[in-house]
């Protein structure tokens, strides 16, 4: 995936332009927050104060560190369970039309149902602990990996499959040495989306009686109508999500050393 064209490679690097854009955004915010209705746009100063409060004295039952740690744990668990279940099912669906026929309709039907709608059922089935929260995250994060794994398997170069067959690959070898690595780039694309979905579902998950968590901070701030704190919680979620995605990228490069470029 080379740059679209030499003409459109920019003279300045990504960090410079990206940095400038972020600074520009902050200035635009600062100016507009001053000039528009101050009740409706969180003031930079309020956000700063909220950040300080959260980091030091705490809010919604804990400090930034406690909330963040808890959310990272939860998002990761949800993501891990989602990936751990979606991968084998996706592989099965990709390799067998029967498995596709079995799982396909159920997944297609359940997939549009929002995480919020599952909360009561999650509580009834799993109680108020982490189980219910992980279940809610799982529901959202499961699908992207599943679909990408399925598509990845189906798009493995048939010539390569044929080559492996003529060299005597049995089902096990085919899975481990051909299908899995062949589908791996797409699987990782799916994992990225699942990771995003995990963080997005976190807010809903932490509605289930969470004692700590950024989602709880968000919802408490929403209850309290504390826009500054909402922004702080949003920013914390965004930073955590982006960081985990970056880590996933590192893992991806480690796992796929044969790729010329990782997308």
């Amino acid at each position, binding site marked *: 995936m080379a740059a679209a064209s030499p003409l459109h490679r920019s003279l300045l690097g990504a960090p410079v332009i990206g940095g400038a854009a972020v600074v520009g955004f902050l200035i635009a915010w600062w100016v507009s927050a001053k000039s528009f209705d101050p009740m409706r746009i969180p003031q930079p100063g309020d956000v700063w104060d909220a950040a300080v409060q959260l980091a030091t004295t705490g809010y919604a039952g804990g400090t930034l560190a406690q909330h963040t740690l808890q959310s990272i744990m939860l998002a990761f668990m949800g993501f891990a369970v989602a990936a751990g279940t979606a991968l084998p099912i996706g592989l099965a669906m990709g390799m067998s039309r029967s498995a596709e026929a079995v799982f396909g309709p159920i997944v297609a039907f359940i997939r549009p149902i929002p995480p919020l709608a599952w909360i009561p059922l999650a509580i009834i089935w799993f109680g108020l602990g982490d189980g219910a929260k992980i279940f809610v995250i799982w529901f959202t994060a499961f699908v992207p990996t599943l679909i990408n794994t399925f598509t990845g398997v189906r798009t493995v170069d048939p010539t390569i499959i*044929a*080559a*492996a*067959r*003529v*060299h005597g*690959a049995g089902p096990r*070898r085919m899975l481990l040495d051909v299908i899995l*690595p062949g589908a791996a780039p797409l699987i990782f694309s799916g994992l990225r989306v699942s990771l995003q979905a995990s963080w997005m579902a976190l807010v809903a998950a932490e509605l289930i009686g969470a004692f700590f968590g950024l989602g709880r901070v968000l919802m408490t701030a929403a209850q309290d109508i504390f826009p500054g704190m909402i922004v702080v919680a949003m920013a914390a979620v965004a930073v955590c999500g982006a960081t985990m995605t970056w880590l996933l990228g590192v893992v991806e490069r480690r796992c796929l050393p044969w790729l010329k470029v990782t997308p």
Partner: protein
Amino acid sequence: MSGIAFTDVTRAFERKGGAFQALEPVTLHVPDGEFVAIVGPSGCGKTTLLRLAAGLDHPTTGSVMVGGRAVTGPGPDRAVVFQQFALLPWKTVRQNIGFGLKCRGMSDAEARPLVERYLATMRLEGHGDSYPHQLSGGMQQRVAIARSFILEPEVLLMDEPFGALDAQTRIEMQEELIRLTAGQRRTVLFITHSVEEATYLADRVVVMAGRPGSVREIVDVASLRKAERWAERPVEEVMELDSFIRIRTRLWRLLRSAGAHRDDAATHTLPIAS
């Protein structure tokens, strides 16, 4: 015992709006130890024929036998070399070459010396730990050949194996192939678009015609090759021989008439990459 026998083989593919007849009854016999090249217009069913022999596809009617046994699926007695190399991109050169051995359950320790030997035979020393994309096309094709040869198959099935290579590399690979098949005489089915290549390499050249695919003519080269000792001479020299040029021109003429009106027919079909 490794001859290939196609007997009244047809293959029809399901298409929107009915079946598409890719091969009309084809009967072709490649005796044990012979090198047969197939040339023919695009879409005439060359790849289909080869896939039938490989066991990657099944005939609609008729029978395909290799070494006296009916073909039911791929087997290590038949190695296939594809035009696009079809190396596993996620495996190093060494792992690719050893893949078939591993599939047979051989341990790494057992496979190692064999792999090293083929690395050397194929002049790939020093590249054992590279990934395929780090190699030139010629080197990739050498890896693909090594991967097949290491299994010591009785039958070699090659589908335009040198089509993706540049002219010089191609010639080198042709010489290489002559050398390798001369060492251990093997039954070879070799598909090519190059009439020169077919003439230079094969004992017999099968000219196919298309829509539906059929054998148009079989041209014998073996007698000349033996008589003029082509195998012992550099390829440029062989290609300048009058006898060589005559066969080549004859094949060309056959092909051009076989391929006539191809474009019009092609409108209604999808060219599928071999």
